[in-house]
C-alpha cells in the first residue's frame, strides 16, 4: 500500500513538473505565452477543486431526483455566490471579461437537451473532464462524443437546412456578414444569425434600468437580485422539499424541540453536510472571479482584445477566424475548445469548415497545441489527476459496452445542447448566472426537467436490471 501511495505521489509530482516545464519553457521562448500559461494554471486549479469536491453539475439536479441528496446543489450555489461577488468587483472596476448572451426560449430548450445528456453520460461537461483526470475511460469517451458532435453539428446543412424556417434564413442573410461566411447555409448558422441574434441580450442591471457597470447595477441588481436572492430561494426550496423532514425527525429523536432555531440549524447542517463540496465551491468561486481579473490584466498589459493577436505574434496564425480572432473567453469555459480541436482535425482531414459562423466568424480552429482554452482544459484534467493521485483515487477504468453506449449518447445530447445554448453547464449556466445574465437561469430551468427525465429513465433501467439479476440468482438457487 505504501509503495502505491509513494508511486502515486511521484506521478503527481511528474504532472506538476510537466506543467511547470511547459510554463517556464514557453515563457522563455516568448513572454506572450504567459497569456496561455494563465489559462493553464487556472484550469489546473479548477481541476483540483472539482476532483476534491467531486464537483459535478449533473449530480446537483440528478442526485436530488434520484436519491434525494442536496450536497451538490449546495456546493454549486456557494460557488455561484462567491463567483458572483468576485465577478461583480471585476465588472465594477472595469476588469470584467464577461459578455452576455441572448435570452430566449432557446436557452430553456438547450438546457433541457443538455440536462438529459448529462444524466445519460454520468457527468456534465466539466465533470467529465475531471473524471477523465481520475482515469475514467467512460468520461473520456463523453468528452470525445461532445467534441465530435459539436464540430459536426455547427457545419451540417443539407437535409437539415430544410428544417430551417424561411424567416430565420432571410434574417440570417440580412446580417451583412463577411463574404467568407455563408449564413444562409447550415442549420446552426441560420439558427444563430436568423434567430438567436435577434433575441435581447439582458442583465438584471439593464432590466432594472441601471447602468451596466455602475455599482448599483453590478452589486444590487446583478449580484444581489440576480445571484444571491434566487440562489438562497433555491436552497430553501431544496431544504423544505428534500432535507427538512429527515433533519427534524432526527432532532426530535435526540430530544430537541422544533421551531425557528431548528429550521436555521437544519439549513446550516444541509449546507455543511459535505464539507469537501462546500470547500471546493468556496475555492472555485474565488478562482473563477480572479481568473477574469488576470485575463483582463494581461489583455491590458499586451494591449490586445483577443488571443488571436498573440497567436499571430508567435507565428501560429493557422485557423484564425475571418476577424483574426480565436476563442478567448477570459474566464472558465469548457465546450467550445472541445469543438475546436475536433474541428481542427476535421479541417486537416479535408472538411472545409471555416465558412460557418461558429468557427469561421467567431472562434477559429487554431492548432490545439497553441489554443489558449485547450491549455485550460488539458490542465484541468491534469489538476484533477494530481488530486486523485494524492488521495489514492486514480484508477484507469475501461468502460463496459453499456457505459460506452451511455457515454456516446449522453455526449451527443450535451454537444447538441451546448451549441443550442451557446455553452454548457459552465459557459451557459454557471458563468452567466454569476454575472447577472438571466439567460443563465433560463438554461438552468431547462436543465432541471432534463435531469428529471434522465433520472426517470435510469430509475426504470436500474429496476429492470436488478429484477433480472434477482431472477438469475433465484434460478441458481433452484
Amino acid at each position, binding site marked *: 500500500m505504501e509503495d502505491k501511495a509513494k508511486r502515486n505521489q511521484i506521478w503527481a509530482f511528474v504532472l506538476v513538473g510537466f506543467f511547470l516545464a511547459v510554463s517556464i519553457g514557453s515563457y522563455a521562448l516568448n513572454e506572450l505565452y504567459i497569456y496561455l500559461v494563465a489559462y493553464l494554471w487556472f484550469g489546473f486549479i479548477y481541476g483540483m477543486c472539482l476532483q476534491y469536491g*467531486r464537483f*459535478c453539475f*449533473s*449530480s446537483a439536479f*440528478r*442526485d436530488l431526483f*434520484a*436519491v*434525494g*441528496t*442536496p*450536497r*451538490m446543489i449546495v456546493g454549486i450555489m456557494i460557488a455561484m455566490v462567491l463567483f458572483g461577488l468576485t465577478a461583480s468587483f471585476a465588472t465594477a472596476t472595469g476588469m470584467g471579461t464577461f459578455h452576455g448572451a441572448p435570452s430566449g426560449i432557446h436557452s430553456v430548450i438547450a438546457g433541457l437537451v443538455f440536462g438529459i445528456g448529462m*444524466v445519460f453520460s*454520468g*457527468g456534465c461537461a466539466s*465533470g467529465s473532464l475531471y*473524471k477523465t483526470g*481520475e482515469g*475514467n475511460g*467512460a*468520461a473520456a469517451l463523453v468528452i470525445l462524443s461532445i467534441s465530435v458532435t459539436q464540430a459536426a453539428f455547427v457545419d451540417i446543412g443539407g437535409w437539415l437546412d430544410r428544417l430551417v424556417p424561411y424567416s430565420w434564413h432571410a434574417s440570417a442573410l440580412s446580417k451583412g456578414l463577411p463574404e467568407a461566411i455563408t449564413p444562409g447555409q447550415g442549420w446552426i448558422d441560420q439558427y444563430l444569425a436568423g434567430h438567436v441574434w435577434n433575441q435581447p441580450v439582458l442583465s438584471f442591471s439593464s432590466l432594472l434600468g441601471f447602468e451596466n457597470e455602475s455599482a448599483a447595477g453590478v452589486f444590487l441588481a446583478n449580484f444581489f437580485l440576480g445571484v444571491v436572492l434566487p440562489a438562497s430561494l433555491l436552497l430553501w426550496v431544496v431544504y423544505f422539499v*428534500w*432535507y427538512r423532514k*429527515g433533519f427534524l425527525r*432526527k432532532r426530535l429523536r435526540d430530544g430537541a424541540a422544533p421551531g425557528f432555531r431548528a429550521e436555521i440549524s437544519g439549513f446550516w447542517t444541509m449546507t455543511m*453536510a*459535505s464539507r*469537501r*463540496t462546500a470547500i471546493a465551491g468556496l475555492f472555485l468561486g474565488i478562482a473563477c472571479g480572479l481568473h477574469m481579473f488576470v485575463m483582463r490584466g494581461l489583455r491590458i498589459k499586451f494591449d490586445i482584445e483577443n488571443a488571436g493577436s498573440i497567436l499571430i505574434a508567435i507565428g501560429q496564425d493557422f485557423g484564425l477566424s475571418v476577424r483574426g480572432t480565436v476563442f478567448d473567453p477570459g474566464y472558465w469555459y469548457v465546450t467550445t475548445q472541445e469543438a475546436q480541436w475536433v474541428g481542427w482535425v476535421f479541417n486537416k482531414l479535408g472538411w472545409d469548415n471555416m465558412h460557418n459562423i461558429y468557427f469561421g466568424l467567431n472562434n477559429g480552429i487554431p492548432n490545439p497545441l497553441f489554443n489558449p482554452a485547450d491549455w485550460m482544459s488539458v490542465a484541468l484534467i491534469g489538476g484533477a489527476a494530481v488530486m*486523485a493521485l494524492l488521495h*489514492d*483515487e486514480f*484508477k484507469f*477504468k475501461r*468502460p*463496459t459496452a453499456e*457505459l460506452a453506449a451511455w457515454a456516446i449518447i449522453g455526449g451527443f445530447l450535451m454537444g447538441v445542447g451546448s451549441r443550442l445554448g451557446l455553452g454548457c453547464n459552465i459557459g451557459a449556466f454557471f458563468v452567466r448566472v454569476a454575472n447577472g445574465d438571466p439567460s443563465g437561469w433560463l438554461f438552468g430551468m431547462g436543465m432541471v426537467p432534463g435531469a428529471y427525465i434522465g*433520472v426517470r429513465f*435510469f*430509475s426504470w433501467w*436500474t*429496476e429492470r*436490471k*436488478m429484477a433480472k*439479476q*434477482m431472477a438469475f*440468482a433465484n434460478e441458481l438457487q433452484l
Partner: protein
Amino acid sequence: MAMKFEKKADGSYVLDVTGYVCPHPQLYTKSALSKMRPGDKLVLIFDNPSSGESIASMFDKTGDEILQRERLNGAFVWTIQKA
C-alpha cells in the same frame, strides 16, 4: 464488469458495482437497500469516488448506517446496515 447483487446469508447481501460511473452506483444501492429488511447488512463495492459522496449523503436522510469503510485494490468496500 456487470453489476452483481447477491444474498450471501440470511440478512447479508453484496452489491458489486465496480466499473460503474454516476448515477448507477447510487441508484443500484438505493434499489438494493429497498429490497432488504431493517437491520440487514449490505457490503457495497464500488470504484467511482463521487458516487461515495452521494451515497453517504443519501444515508443522512434515510438513516442507514455505514459500519465500515475499507479500500481494496483501488475500490471502496463499505459495510452498510439498513435502518
